[in-house]
């Protein structure tokens, strides 16, 4: 098994950033970006699920 290039906390902070940014893109009004932004946000949502069980207010 390879050694991770960043620690777990840092990695999860990045996921939170991706979740927040993709949510912004989803709401940006650019219809061509919206579907895939929603996919990215949803994938990030479930990458964070273990931390907050999907309760976004805790994010």
């Amino acid at each position: 098994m390879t050694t991770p290039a960043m620690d777990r906390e840092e990695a999860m902070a990045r996921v939170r950033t991706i979740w927040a940014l993709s949510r912004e893109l989803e709401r940006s009004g650019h219809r061509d970006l919206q579907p895939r932004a929603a996919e990215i946000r949803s994938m990030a949502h479930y990458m964070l699920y273990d931390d907050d069980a999907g309760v976004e207010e805790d994010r």
Partner: protein
Amino acid sequence: MTPPNVFLPRLESLSRGELEELQGRKLRRQVERLYAQNPFYRKLWSDAGVSVEDIRTREDVRRLPFTRKQDFIADQRAHPPFGLRLGVPAAEVGEITETSGTSGQGKEIHGHTVQDMHLRGQMTAVGWAWAGLREQDIGIFHIPASNSASLYTMLRGIRAVGRLPYLVGHLGFQERLELMAAVGVNAMYATPSGLNGMAALCRELEIVPEKAFPELSFIMISGESWPVEWALRMQEFWQAKITEVYGSTQLNAAYGAACCEAGAVVDGQRGSNHLFEWTTLYEVIDPETGEQVQPGEPGELVITHLDKQASPIMRFRSGDRVTYYPHSRCRCGRQLDVVEAGTIGRVDDMLKVKGQNIWPSELESLIFTHDEVDEFQARAYIGDKGRDEMELRFAVKAGYAPERITADLVRELKEATNVTFRVHCVPADSLPHFTSPDKKARRWTDDRHAGLAKGTDR
């Protein structure tokens, strides 16, 4: 001690108290959201005199009225295609699932938002991870793709844990075995009857699974009950662990419970499906009284989904009969309560055959629309090739010829159930005539477990 195949490290290590507190919090959140946004539930709860303020803890779920399949169907008919229960703008629906429609009541159509779609993958991934799928593994799906089967769920679930999912359910058994041998397989999902049929074909073709599929490490089953002896024989034959999962369309078309590392049979006894209680609140009730049953008593599973956005499920009477136990029944350490493996069935008279739902009462109406039919008996059994079969024996009234009726019944039963019945006309005096009120149950028998216990292929 931490179990080896953990997928959600924090959630899987929550204490019972922490889990129940989380459920209460998510329940409140879901009820608040649905009261504000979902006209179906707002009306249902308002009519029942329940307000948002009444829901404070997980126990308060019992204040909510039950929902049933017929409620959803009626809502859909009044407001097609999804009903008011959809609760999100239709433009946010990215996938649908349908129930089979064989109940005669119609098909439920469930919408899924993009987030629901990934929720499906997430919960399905838990089952594959616990069973032992690894990063480089190939997992395959033996169910034909449709809007009922959880195709996307499976692909996402396997990809969240392993490497390569591929489909084989659209192929005949021999082609499946050939593809599996060519591409490789580490794990597979199949119904018990499908697995049994493949085992029978392997024997016929002199395929030794240990040699043909040397990397196969586990087989995940669901959808039909099974005897322990059969599961042990399958483990021996395939040289792979048998594990079980439980899921349904109403569980977001995903898994809602799964066996842990221990598999479906533990020390020669039935294992345990751990309920995914972070995402769903389960109750097990006496179907007659609606009261909670005691551990070890069979009851009807009631589902309240805590994460679903579109077509949410609140206090839904699933019709599935389970035997519930506290988490301590399993030694893995997870504090998720369990339902016994291998005994999940129906509280009504539905039969599950070849993955299809067969509702005897509906078929009885269909059969007796033929005025010429005097009486019939039907049974599910294990056929020569180790697969589930259905047989219908009927008698005609005096003066009628059976040929055309036989052909019509074969076609109509196939259309209604997607299962091919073996239909035979027999002399009237070879069938009992049912006149008592329990006639429905006596016309239909399920001989499969007796066949399995005898040690036939299944």
